């Protein structure tokens, strides 16, 4: 579904932020993308969506990501941004949620039905008519996830979906992610969440792929994680990280 071949991304000419990254994500797979702060996770997702220029080859569902194919590519992908403030731009949650579906040709009735279904699924019905700028940080995050789910994308890209969420909402999102059959690429520093939601994990270290394999294997490999400035998931590490 997603294929990267020798992908490099530059913000400045001299040093690439991503260097020769290659991997493939199959249809229906749930892949965790982990790495220390500044490793390049967000950058990778932005390049995938054509928000940043890249070198090398990226294809989604067989179509190469180029400026020309962007509308087609973006139609398939839903992206939950790391910063929800930048995700929502309409006055109310409801208007934000119908924005995507209606741009892609859904009728108002269809869009309304999707909104209600997603809100019910995320237990957010009371946020529907709230104003975006009056939401709390976590409410905003839940609403942002809702806007993306309402688009019913084939591929879900989630940049730290559970940061800012309370334990109950975190659980809810984990459960929702597990239930969704779509292809998923998820970054997080919450490795327990990755453990619960992903079959496979890719470790990004300083802009290149440091490891790629089954989630449980990688998340238990203390040496590998520490070499990449990461730690074991809490459930394996115990309270003092030992």
């Amino acid at each position, binding site marked *: 579904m997603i294929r990267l071949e020798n992908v490099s991304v530059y913000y400045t000419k001299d040093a690439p932020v991503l260097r020769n990254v290659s991997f493939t994500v199959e249809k229906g797979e749930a892949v965790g993308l982990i790495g220390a702060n500044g490793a390049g996770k967000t950058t990778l997702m932005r390049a995938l*969506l054509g*928000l940043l220029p890249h070198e090398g080859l990226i294809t989604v569902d067989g179509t190469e990501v180029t400026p020309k194919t*962007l*509308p087609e590519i*973006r*139609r398939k*992908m839903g*992206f939950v*941004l790391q*910063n929800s*403030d*930048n*995700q929502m*731009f*309409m*006055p*109310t949650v409801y*208007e934000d949620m*119908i*924005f*995507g579906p*209606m*741009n*892609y*040709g859904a009728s*108002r009735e269809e*869009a309304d039905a999707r909104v209600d279904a997603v809100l019910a699924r995320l237990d957010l019905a009371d946020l529907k008519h709230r*104003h975006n*700028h009056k939401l709390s940080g976590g409410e905003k995050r839940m609403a942002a996830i809702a*806007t993306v789910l309402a*688009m019913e994308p084939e591929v879900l890209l989630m940049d730290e979906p559970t940061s800012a969420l309370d334990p109950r909402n975190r659980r809810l999102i984990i459960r929702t992610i597990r239930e969704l059959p779509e292809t998923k690429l998820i970054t997080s520093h919450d490795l327990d969440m990755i453990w619960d939601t992903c079959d496979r994990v890719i470790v990004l270290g300083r802009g290149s792929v440091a490891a790629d394999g089954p989630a449980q294997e990688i998340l238990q490999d203390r040496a590998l994680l520490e070499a990449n400035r990461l730690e074991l998931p809490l459930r394996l590490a115990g309270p003092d990280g030992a």
Partner: protein
Amino acid sequence: MNRMDRSLLELREMDTLAAGDSPVHRLHALAKLLTTVAYIIVTVSFGKYQLDGLLIMVLWPALLFSLSGIPVGTCFRKLRFVLPLVMAVGLFNPFFDRAPLLTVGGLTVSGGVVSMITLMLKGLFCLAASFLLMATTSIDDLCAALRRLHLPSILVTLLLLTYRYVGVMTEELSVMTDAYHLRAPGQRGIRFAAWGSFLGQLLLRSMDRAEELYGSMQLRGFSGNFAYAEDRRFTGRDALWLILWTAAFVLCRLYNIPGLLGRLLTGGIR
């Protein structure tokens, strides 16, 4: 709450007003837009001494205020920065145009005074009409209406983004001023030496955010068409509203209705 927060709230208040519900809100954006344009054209076209004819134009904004339930006070509060500018336009007329024009109760009024009041009223009426349009129509519906008039999508998108950008910038400004004052207690305003970096940061930050917001619009299929905005059809009611009001404006322009009424009354008394 700092000053930026307050102006931000005011900006957002327009969104809130526009999201309200009333017979005026329910009209098609295109009908409202065109009626407003007609109103402004007719109002502006009154001659500089046609004060008596112009007076009747106050009825339209007055009617809209009462139909839409938008408080008149809110309008004046929001226009408080623009209003004086518009009012200042005619301020010098009384000095240049001293020829006596009419007498009211034994008092001679010069042409300059009349033209000054006429200009001020024109400005006031047009501002109130534009405000009412913005307060009863969401920016997205308005953009959709402009697209229907076949304005280039790039221009309309620019308008939409500018509107959003002002919001983003005020928001960043508010966050930054708070952050500054938390670490500079007791300072009033921002130290002059910090202005350069502060403004630079503000610009960069709001540009980044605006870019990311625009990216996020594109990711959800935005292409300069406002498919999501206006779903209402342009109904007979909308057409009627547009035609009747435009006709009424033109009639008011052609016939001096307050004058006619006045003559009728005084004629009756005589």
